[in-house]
């Protein structure tokens, strides 16, 4: 467990690094020139653009465009200087490594946390100050030209948004910097930061022209969460040994396969019984917390669905199946139920959905996988709510329509979701002494064991039950 003791002593030593790096940065024209341009020239240009655009659109009777453009440009003026922070942060560790100045620093009595804080502050502070200055220059110009002042809440939002965007970019870039072996590789990896940020700014632009400024708070909150994850990841992945040791970035498929297969086979050898008993059990124990999280999430999803039933109520005549049960079996057969083909279709669909959810989970620390698995239970909750609103017993609906196959399918979803959260979280928190890649491969082996050993067989059983048992129960309960 990594503690985050932001004590005075930690900050004191960290700031020694920050001070030196800022002083060095201020002697580098590659940093100074863009900051000056983006702080003074660019806000001036935006100011001119805003004044002209407002005059133009007012002439054509569309002043609303001008009203929306001014806050939008305020956001852009704040964002542009912080883009410099990415460049500084990307080379924070790997740049020192390339210049051979990292080892003396790592040999000093600084803790990992002090080094991390010092570097992060050094990367974020100059561009952020430039950004605030740019905002001031832009607003001063607007006041002089148009007598326009921003509402206080908007100003607070833009400053907060600028700050969290800078810290997210810096935290992500510092992670990249600690995991690459050259500045060139770090710049290539920066796409993983630049592309999401570019998409985010586009989304924010829409919000600004839409004038739904309350949505900015949601974005700010989301970015704070992402930043917390990235900081945790940065501190956890910071490894002096790896920083000094790695000389080249390479994909060693043989070594990767060795790590994966060693973890997958474990102590079981070629005995499937031992594999189930020892290895699957071991992986299950590792994902016990993610299992608890998934159980909580699907329960929450069910209740959210239930709560939304009255909000988005279906017309009563849509709930006809329960009331109108003439030739029910024939109608169910039309959907492919009671047939082997139906089993194959459902199993294929469930496996495809599970694999896709897991794939999404890999790129989102498991979050998207959890959301995908929450959707079906949310829908069940919503439909149960509709049944109740239509005057029927929701337990009858759940017992007949969901439970027979759900007894296998829901645990399978929970297991896959949990294994995927474990897999996604391995990026943030690899096992002690393991590299990120080794940690990920070990988690992938756990995911594979859980999927092959438990979830896939449960999904096959669920498909059988869903095709032959659930419809039979429905017919028996409802008649027809």
């Amino acid at each position, binding site marked *: 467990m990594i503690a985050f003791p932001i004590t005075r002593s930690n900050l004191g030593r960290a700031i020694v690094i920050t001070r030196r790096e800022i*002083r*060095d940065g201020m002697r580098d024209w590659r940093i100074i020139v863009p900051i000056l341009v983006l702080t003074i020239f660019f806000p001036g240009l935006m100011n001119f653009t805003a004044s002209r655009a407002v005059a133009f659109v007012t002439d054509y009777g569309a002043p609303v465009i001008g009203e929306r453009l001014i806050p939008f440009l305020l956001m852009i003026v704040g964002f542009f200087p912080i883009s410099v922070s990415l460049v500084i942060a990307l080379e924070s560790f790997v740049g020192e490594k390339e210049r*051979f*100045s990292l080892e003396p620093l790592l040999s000093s*009595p*600084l803790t990992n946390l002090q080094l991390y804080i010092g570097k992060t502050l050094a990367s974020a502070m100059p561009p952020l100050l430039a950004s605030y200055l740019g905002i001031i220059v832009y607003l001063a110009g607007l006041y002089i030209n148009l007598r326009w002042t921003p509402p206080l809440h908007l100003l607070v939002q833009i400053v907060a948004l600028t700050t969290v965007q800078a810290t997210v970019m810096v935290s992500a870039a510092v992670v990249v910097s600690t995991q690459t072996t050259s500045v060139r590789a770090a710049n290539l990896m920066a796409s993983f930061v630049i592309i999401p940020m570019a998409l985010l700014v586009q989304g924010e632009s829409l919000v600004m022209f839409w004038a739904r400024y309350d949505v900015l708070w949601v974005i700010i909150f989301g970015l704070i969460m992402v930043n917390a994850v990235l900081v945790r990841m940065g501190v956890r992945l910071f490894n002096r*040994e790896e920083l000094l040791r790695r000389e080249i970035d390479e994909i060693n498929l043989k070594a990767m396969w060795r790590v994966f297969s060693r973890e997958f086979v474990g102590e079981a050898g070629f005995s499937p019984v031992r594999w189930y008993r020892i290895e699957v059990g071991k992986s299950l124990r590792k994902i016990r917390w993610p299992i608890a999280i998934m159980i909580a999430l699907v329960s929450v999803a069910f209740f959210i669905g239930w709560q939304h039933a009255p909000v988005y109520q279906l017309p009563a005549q849509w709930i006809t199946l329960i009331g109108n049960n003439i030739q029910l079996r024939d109608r169910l057969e039309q959907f492919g139920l009671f047939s082997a083909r139906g089993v194959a279709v459902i199993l294929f669909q469930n496996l495809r959905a599970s694999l896709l959810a897991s794939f999404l989970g890999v790129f989102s620390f498991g979050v998207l996988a959890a959301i995908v698995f929450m959707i079906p239970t949310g829908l069940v909750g919503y439909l149960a709510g509709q049944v109740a609103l239509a005057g029927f017993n929701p337990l009858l609906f759940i017992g007949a329509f969901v439970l027979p196959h759900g007894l296998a399918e829901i645990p399978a979803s929970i297991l896959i979701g949990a294994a995927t959260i474990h897999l996604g979280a391995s990026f943030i928190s690899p096992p002690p002494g393991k590299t990120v890649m080794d940690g990920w491969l070990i988690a992938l082996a756990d995911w594979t064991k859980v999927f092959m050993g438990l979830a896939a067989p449960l999904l096959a059983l669920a498909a059988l039950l869903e095709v032959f048992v659930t419809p039979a129960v429905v017919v028996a309960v409802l008649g027809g």
Partner: protein
Amino acid sequence: MIEARALTKYFDDFHAVETVSLSVPAGRVLALLGPNGAGKTTTVRMLTSILKPTSGTAIVAGYDVVRQPEGVRANVGILTEHHGLYLRSTGREYLDFFGELYGVAANVRRQRIGELLDRFGMAEAAGRRTSEYSKGMRQKLALIRSMLHDPPVLLLDEPTSAMDPQSAKLVRDAIADLRTDNRAIILCTHNLPEAEALADTIAIIRKGRIIASGTTDDLKDQLLGPALMELRFAAPVDGVAQTLSDVATIVEQGADWVRYCAASPETANPLILSRLARDGVSVFTLAEAPRSLEAVYLRAVEEDESALRS
């Protein structure tokens, strides 16, 4: 001061250092000799708590390298193979930065930086950016950095490698002074005369293992056999071998010289000299035949190679 027991470091399947044990008490210098890639830097990095040993233990300045890394690092001064200065900083700024990182109080820092800069002839250059420094000046600045916090343990990797003879002597004198100051020093070097001049103990490391260690004399005896005495005569002489045969074993001889080894030179040499004087042979010199550390090193490597082959 430095006690390492069976230090081992594996990088995946590569065995970088294998069961290395070292002991360097206060006031002593250990020279770690070995070819590139032998494991010297890995050993030093483990002793600085930058690399975690795969197995084995080490106590440096009273701190455990695994459990008390910050304590170790605070008490070790390290000169790394690449000095890696901050090229936009001046020499004084660079030293001040590291002094502050090591927690040296501002007034002490100022005084110590001044003293060390003077001692190494760097005072005039201290206000210039390090990018303007020559290789040797950069090396000296990095060495000053390693000594700035007055550490009881110094780990020096090639301290004179880039220096001109005058600067190298300055540094060697400084290391000798530091030894008398009761510090434990490990010196990684390829410069064998320097190692011989400065070190109390030599350890030869090869393929991650210590293949020979001891004082220079011990190693010479161990690897090159007992000391050889060399007698040089004022003029060519015949029949010396016969005269000496009962007190020494002749190893080599020429017209006006002879090399022999004796079980106890302290008693054999006076006896030999008196016999030669009795026989009217004029002795020009009697001295121990030179046995270089290079010969020791090469012999150690050769023996290890043949041991590995067999």
